[in-house]
């Protein structure tokens, strides 16, 4: 089954049975019925696509629509009076810059540390057989399943006891611990994909172990490191639950907390949905871009583990 999930979701499927020559020997009635079925399937598929894409479209459209028009009924479903004022107002508001800085600091630190730590651990478990290896792998696999909700009370107490509530360091440690297990697992697959023989061949050709690593192994691992880095980015950037307990001060909010606060503040004077959607868009756009870059690897990473073997 290992091939199952290696195939990208977007890969072209084989030609459907109806397109094949042997279909012509069937009666015309089956042909007509099958055609009707295909047309129906196409219509349903378009309807499903609309339902799934509509909230994203509605967010972007509302972000670009003046609030007065958004309040008017019936709603307009296409761009009619585009404006940048919602986005401009949100960006120039003081709270956005603070939250963005906080998010960038926390995410940046987390991604770097996660990548470094996970890479070393992935090297250890894929290149070495040692006593305690299975115990470590088992720990990693169990820890990655633990929900934040089962730990955040203790994490809150831990940070408040050490004076690290509302600090970049405190929450980054928690994020790193939460993200490192799956990243180790992901990178392990990539490291195993680079045969150790390759490194040894380079060493026979006169490179030292370090040189062989830097010149041969690392370049081959670059795609894996990029995918893992984007995974860590998405996790840290979107995280809400741990941030809610670890960053109670308004001045320390990351973007997801800020968005929640933005909506609450707006609700006090009748929600300005145009601005709220502009705020959502600012949170979502970097994620959507990164996600589209990396998604095929994430699907296979999550499922492949379970299916292989």
């Amino acid at each position, binding site marked *: *089954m290992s091939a*199952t999930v290696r195939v*990208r*979701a*977007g890969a072209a*499927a084989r030609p*459907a*049975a109806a397109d094949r020559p042997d279909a012509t020997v069937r009666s015309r009635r089956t042909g007509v019925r099958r055609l009707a079925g295909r047309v129906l*399937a196409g219509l*349903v*598929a378009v309807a*499903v*696509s609309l339902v*799934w*894409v509509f*909230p*994203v479209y*509605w967010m972007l459209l*509302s972000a670009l629509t003046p609030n007065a028009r*958004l309040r008017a009924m019936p*709603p307009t479903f296409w761009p009619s009076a585009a404006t940048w004022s919602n986005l401009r107002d949100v960006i120039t508001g003081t709270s956005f810059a603070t939250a963005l800085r906080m998010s960038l600091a926390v995410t940046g630190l987390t991604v770097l*540390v996660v990548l470094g730590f*996970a890479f*070393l*651990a992935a090297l*250890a*478990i894929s*290149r070495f057989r040692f006593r305690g290896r*299975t115990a470590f792998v088992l720990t*990693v696999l*169990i*820890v990655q399943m633990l*929900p934040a*909700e*089962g*730990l*955040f*009370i*203790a994490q*809150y107490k831990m940070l408040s006891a050490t004076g690290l509530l509302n600090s970049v360091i405190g929450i980054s*440690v928690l994020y790193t*611990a*939460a993200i490192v*297990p799956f990243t180790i697992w992901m990178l392990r697959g990539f490291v195993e994909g680079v045969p150790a023989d390759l490194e040894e061949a380079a060493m026979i050709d006169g490179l030292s172990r370090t040189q062989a690593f830097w010149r041969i192994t690392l370049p081959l691992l670059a795609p894996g490191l990029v995918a893992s880095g984007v995974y860590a980015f998405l996790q840290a950037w*979107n995280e*809400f639950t741990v941030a809610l307990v670890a960053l109670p001060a308004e001045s320390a909010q990351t973007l*997801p907390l800020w*968005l*929640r606060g933005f909506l609450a503040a707006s609700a006090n004077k009748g929600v300005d949905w145009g601005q709220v959607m502009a*705020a*959502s868009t600012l*949170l979502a756009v970097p*994620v*959507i871009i990164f*996600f589209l870059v990396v*998604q095929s690897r994430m699907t296979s990473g999550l*499922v492949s*583990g379970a*299916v*292989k073997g």
Partner: protein
Amino acid sequence: MTTTTSAPRTRRGRRARLPYVLLIPAVAVLAVGMGYPVYWQITTSLHTYGLAQQFGQPAPFVGLANYTRILGDERLWAVVVRSVLFCLVNAFLTVGIGVGVALLMRAVNRIVRVVLQVSMLLAWAMPMVAAVTVWKWLFDWRTGVVNWLLVQLGATSYDQHNWFAQPLSFFFVASVIIVWMSVPFVALSVFAALTQVPDEVVEAARIDGAGPVATFRWITVPMIRPVLAIVLLLQIIWDLRVFAQIRLLQDSGAPVSETNLLGNFIFELGIGRQDFASAAAVSILVLALTVLVSWPYVRSLLKEDRS
């Protein structure tokens, strides 16, 4: 190691220690970020932790008293029943709809399939907080699109309808959001599995007289069963830990005590009421439940590692 050890043996010794050295940073951060909190919760759940302890008094050991108290609490059981029901309904809905979408992707032509896949990806890519915020607006009582659409369709009672006031309709909205967010992962994973079912087998079944339903039931489902099982298990695990979506939706004025799930209950006990002993006890129960439910998944991953 003595100074008389020959050079080759030293090198072998260093080589044997290398994997442990490589693991130090990961183990250290896991011990601080995960290990210590688990340890703290276990010890706290076995002691009294009241106001006096907040101010540094020693906490008397009470054994399992916190557990028996919390397990005798009706509120906990209401939350547990609610959480399990919510989790199962959403997990099965998500997998059912996801399989349906995957079959649609197989049935339609290339252009429609790409449209469907891109919509799925866009929905999947939405950050959770942004997604909940957008859905809140879609379900807004005054100018939301959903109420407007329902009124257009003739359900005039939905004019200015508040979806968040009643627990049942609150959980309906929560389910819509969670299913919408989770279906893309299921659909794309199952679609990838479906492309691996050989056409010859399906064709052979058809020649033998099997209709589309029988072919799906007896050929396709058995062949994609491993993926279906893992996807369903992951959905159950993920839907058991729904916290943030509920928390964000409660901001819209929902009755909190009637809409709390397990995570929200812990949050209320710990952060809200400062009852850390009870919160720690419930947390430990949730962690134990998670390990129990995830065990088949963890075991299959471990098997892969051994091969």
